[in-house]
């Protein structure tokens, strides 16, 4: 199945030696243009959903957060602060508590 994919170039596959030097290749690359899908998924409605929708969708889609396991309030606080301090998420200071409470309500550890 794999072999079907191969142009002539790769037919001499290398088993024991990790690398085989060969002459410069005749392989050619073709330009690529694609469209990536986007996500319009929002956070489930509830107290604080506006704050999280406004602050947490710029860099990654909601799936990043919604696929997370349940975490303690302390862990959610650390996550939000990591976004602000390490990744420069522009979160207004007054929204931090609201977002942490929203996440703890949605995905708080029991």
């Amino acid at each position, binding site marked *: 199945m794999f072999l079907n994919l191969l142009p002539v170039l*790769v037919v001499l596959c290398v088993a024991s030696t990790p690398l085989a030097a060969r002459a410069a290749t005749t392989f050619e690359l073709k330009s*690529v243009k694609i469209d990536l899908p986007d996500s319009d998924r929002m956070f489930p409605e509830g107290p604080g959903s506006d704050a999280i929708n406004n602050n947490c969708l710029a860099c*990654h889609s909601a799936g990043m957060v*919604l696929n997370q396991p349940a975490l303690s309030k302390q862990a959610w606080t650390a996550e939000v602060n990591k976004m602000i301090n*390490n990744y420069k998420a522009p979160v207004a200071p007054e929204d931090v508590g609201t977002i942490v409470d929203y996440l703890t309500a949605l995905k708080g550890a029991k």
Partner: protein
Amino acid sequence: MADDGVFHRMMTRRRLLAAASAAAAGAALSRPAWAQSMIDLPLPDGPGARQITTSFPQKGPMILQRTRPPLLETPFEVFDKGVFTPNNQFYVRWHWALIPTDIDTDKFALTVRGHVNQTLSLSLNDILHGLPSVQLSAVNQCSGNSRGFFQPRVPGGEWANGAMGNALWTGVRLKDVLDKAGVKPGAVQVRFKGLEEPVVADAPHFVKSLDIDHARDGEVMIAFAMNGEQLPLLNGFPLRLIVPGWYATYWVKMLNDIEVLNQPDTNYWTKVAYTIPDTPYASIKPGEAGVKMIPINRMVPRSFVTNMASGSKVNAAAPLRGIAFGGDCGVAGVDYSIDRGQSWRQAQLGKDEGKYGFRQWQTQLALPAPGKYSLLIRCTNSNGVAQPDTPNWNPAGFMRNVVESIDIIAA
């Protein structure tokens, strides 16, 4: 594939797919129907539900972990089909969402700069036709592959075991490229950057560094082909750094900038993110503080059954097969146990496609009586390192390589 080899979870998916295509036949709208098929990853305490998506260009059915920037996991049954992971189902992992979607091969250039005699700007033509080509099969595995199985759970990409793949990479040696620029005495590290850009201006660009001797070891390479074809854009077209035996965080995609440094790199992604406890198996106790952290580096051995899922009903004499890899060296052996580790038997290894790649293995089960069995699979690598029988834990969810176990029922 034998009947008992069909994944239980995938059967659910197949039913959904069948239903989806039946619906599509009527409505002529196959994409939305496909987009609704789901998989349930067995992550402790969940959530494990994920879509199977076919919406990503140049990619086949993938487990959707995140749409933007894409995190796409390889459905596990793909690993049963061959030793090389097909490009269109090779997992995908990006950090920042500004990923160029239009790459003109005539305009693309790779810069080599910094502590070198002459700065270079290499065209794809210079790279493909101006330097000797080399080939190597190697496993590319996310540092956080299997993170979703950590207990207690940790935040991050919540992958099952499919954030890995094996390909035959064709490209040029990094050493040859560095020699062309002429590394000056006093160089200590080499830093790599791709075309992906942070969404927020002052956020840290994704860059990674290797020590100069590692960069010049003749094995680290710049790939322009994967399994004999150009890389899918989402896997790093047109050029990707290949760091055999090391975690994928170093395998910079859409590589366009190489900077030779005369002092150690202190950037966020090498110094702060992607660090592990400097302890055996990178393991600590949850909550343990004051541990020395070091950049993640070499991979460790792993092995998986690919033709049976946990919960399968099997024949007492069913064939058992799977894949293994040694991590930073080859596979010396794969052993399995049907009695919870009291005794081990050797599986038969398949063809050696190169020490950094997947190695297929197989055996014939001989289950003595009907009933439940817990099968254990253990790889020992050619440095004599075996998979541990207890799971490691660290706060980032890195380097899981515990002996895998699956529960089966003998008919």
